[in-house]
């Protein structure tokens, strides 16, 4: 203060006060964005690393990462959909009451009374669906471009955690309206959690060892689906899972940067061609020394032995692209919300199940499997799939084809073959089970453990595993096996979901079309 007065000698304190007052917009802006306007490469850099949110990204982005075909913007679309659900979800909490019956009435109020309530609820529901789709497609993108490989193995695991939380958020949200759909979905969900009893009962050890019963008890907080269960699902939906998701999301995005950005092939620079004339390179000559910030950064710096970096400033190139994806996501969600209302059935009735009682679409593949064996469909096969997905980056240590779509041994022909095989076997098994039934119909006295072990779900899993092993041998590559397995499971998931969604009617009986359902 005393120094400043020297520079402005001759001006009264009151004059300085007024001058400072006038300059508040400018000085506030300067204090907010410390580096000044992002007009030069240097200020663009400080714009990124001086901001706690933006600095999850690198200061400069490789031109390969900015190509539409590299990522299709799916990761950012997932984040955008999550932010939309976050904002609309908080708005819905103004009116929602997590208590049986009152919950249903409050959703009705939102739907019919609250200004824009129906619109906000619709956006919330559609954004949740968009998020599930985007997360699944994002995972497929990362898999098919081989982007899970070293050094990105751990981030693949973080991504799997995010997928699980996304599905958990969707499922817990499904219960909150306390309508028929919600009540019976939760009854089924809680009993799937209890389904290890299918095995412990058959072994007659439930009395001593009952993980299924404990899971159900922890989930419901009671022996029945009631107010305790609703409060628990509400807590999971609005507090525990969103917090976990935000934390993991931060790690996920930060690690993308720390693992060297989006995966790209070694010859990405050659494939891209020379950078545009106005791109200012970071290094004008290739550094030949191995620079190391000892004890902080392990290994060689990525720039060693490479020519001028093919990067552009993240501000504006990356951020404008992300803004575009964000706006597209908002557009999709609001457009769908205008066209289609979120469902609300009758008030939950514990004595009359919804018929058919269908889970949200992304769980219908599981529900199809559950209709053969509760334990295998609900817990066994999902665990096998999750374990297999988690092991992929540790089993596939190859380098060939990283960063390229369907890269690696086998390539596109293998993926096409796997698609045909994956759809074909799933279709054949479903058709067989629908036409001829399964073991229980042929031999009613067969022990439950046999059915738990051998049902369409486990047979399909075994067929896929066998095909994958064949691919490993045929191409002499674990990447080929991974490509085969992932493609097969993706196809199986799609086929089972479609069957569950469109071809299952009352009593889970097969119908060619919902128009053939008997009235009830």
């Amino acid at each position, binding site marked *: 203060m005393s120094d400043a007065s020297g520079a402005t000698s001759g001006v009264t304190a009151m004059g300085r006060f007024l001058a400072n007052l006038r300059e508040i917009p400018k000085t506030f802006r300067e204090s907010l964005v410390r580096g000044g306007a992002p007009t030069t490469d240097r200020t663009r850099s400080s714009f990124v690393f001086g901001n706690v949110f933006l600095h999850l990204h690198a200061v400069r982005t490789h031109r390969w990462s900015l190509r539409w075909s590299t990522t299709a913007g799916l990761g950012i679309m997932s984040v955008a959909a999550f932010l939309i659900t976050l904002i609309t979800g908080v708005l819905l909490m103004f009116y929602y009451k997590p208590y049986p019956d009152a919950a249903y009435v409050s959703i009705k109020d939102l739907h019919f009374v609250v200004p824009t309530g129906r619109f906000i609820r619709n956006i919330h529901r559609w954004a949740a669906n968009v998020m599930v789709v985007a997360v699944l497609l994002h995972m497929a993108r990362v898999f098919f471009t081989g982007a899970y490989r070293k050094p990105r193995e751990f981030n693949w695991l973080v991504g799997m955690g995010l997928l699980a939380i996304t599905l958990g958020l969707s499922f817990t949200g499904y219960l909150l309206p306390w309508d028929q759909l919600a009540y*019976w979905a939760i*009854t*089924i969900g*809680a*009993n*799937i959690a209890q*389904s290890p009893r*299918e095995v412990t*009962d*058959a072994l007659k050890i439930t009395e001593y060892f009952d993980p299924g019963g*404990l899971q159900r*008890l*922890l989930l419901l*907080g*009671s*022996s*029945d689906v*009631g*107010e*305790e269960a609703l409060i*628990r699902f509400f807590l999971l939906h609005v507090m525990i899972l969103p917090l976990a998701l935000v934390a993991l999301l931060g790690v996920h995005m930060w690690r993308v940067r720390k693992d060297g950005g989006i995966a790209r092939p070694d010859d990405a620079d050659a494939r891209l061609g020379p950078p545009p004339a106005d791109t200012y390179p970071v290094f004008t000559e290739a550094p030949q020394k191995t620079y190391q910030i000892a004890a902080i950064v392990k290994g060689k710096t990525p720039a060693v032995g490479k020519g001028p970096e093919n990067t552009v400033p993240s501000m504006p190139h990356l951020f404008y692209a992300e803004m575009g994806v964000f706006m597209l996501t908002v557009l999709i969600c609001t457009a769908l919300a205008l066209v289609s209302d979120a469902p609300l059935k009758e008030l939950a009735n*514990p*004595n*009359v*199940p*919804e*018929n*058919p*009682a269908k889970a949200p679409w992304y769980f219908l593949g599981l*529900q199809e499997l*559950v*209709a*053969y*064996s*509760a334990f295998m469909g609900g817990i066994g096969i999902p665990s096998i799939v999750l374990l297999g997905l988690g092991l992929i980056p540790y089993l596939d240590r190859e380098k060939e084809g990283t960063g390229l779509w369907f890269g690696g041994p086998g390539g596109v022909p293998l993926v096409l073959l796997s698609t045909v095989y994956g759809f074909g076997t799933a279709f054949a098994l479903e058709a067989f089970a629908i036409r001829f*039934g399964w073991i*229980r*119909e042929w031999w*009613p006295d067969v022990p*439950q453990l046999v*059915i*738990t072990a051998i049902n369409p779900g486990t047979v399909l899993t075994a067929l896929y595993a066998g095909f994958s092993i064949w691919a490993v041998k045929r191409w002499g590559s674990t990447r080929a096996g991974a490509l085969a397995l992932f493609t097969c499971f993706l196809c199986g998931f799609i086929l089972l979901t479609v069957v569950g969604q469109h071809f299952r009617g*009352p*009593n*889970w*009986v097969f119908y060619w079309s919902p128009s053939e359902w008997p009235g009830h």
Partner: protein
Amino acid sequence: MTTTSKSSRLDPEPMPRRDFLGLAAMWAMGASAAFALLGILRLPRAAVLPAPSKKFKVALPESLADGEPFVPPGRSVALFKDKDGVYAVSTICTHLGCIVKQSADGFACPCHGSEFHKDGTVKKGPAPTALPWLAVTKDGGSFVVDESKVVDPGTRLT
């Protein structure tokens, strides 16, 4: 690298006290965190389960024919009467907990297609076990069903 050359050159040293204390502190912290987590996990598991009473009283209608199920309103139990006595079969599907409905010759589940005979045994579908029989006692002219008490199939109140 330095540690291997050191150990080959010298006799094995006892662990320095500082290292020992540091490790002990770390393990103590880990143990107390695990212990605290166990305590925290006890909270969501209620000692007393808040649920309505599982026992209810019911009078069978006079017109109930032998072997015909009678489902008291609002209950998920089917009561039967035959020449050997009265018995109750749960109508909660053993697969995933939906309420089974009466079908032509037994029960059918709307959720995943399980079918049961009238005595609760599985006819087809994914249900792993038969519908349980429930304890029935007599109270004056009516019957008391205890949904929390499973009895052996075939147990009738005579």
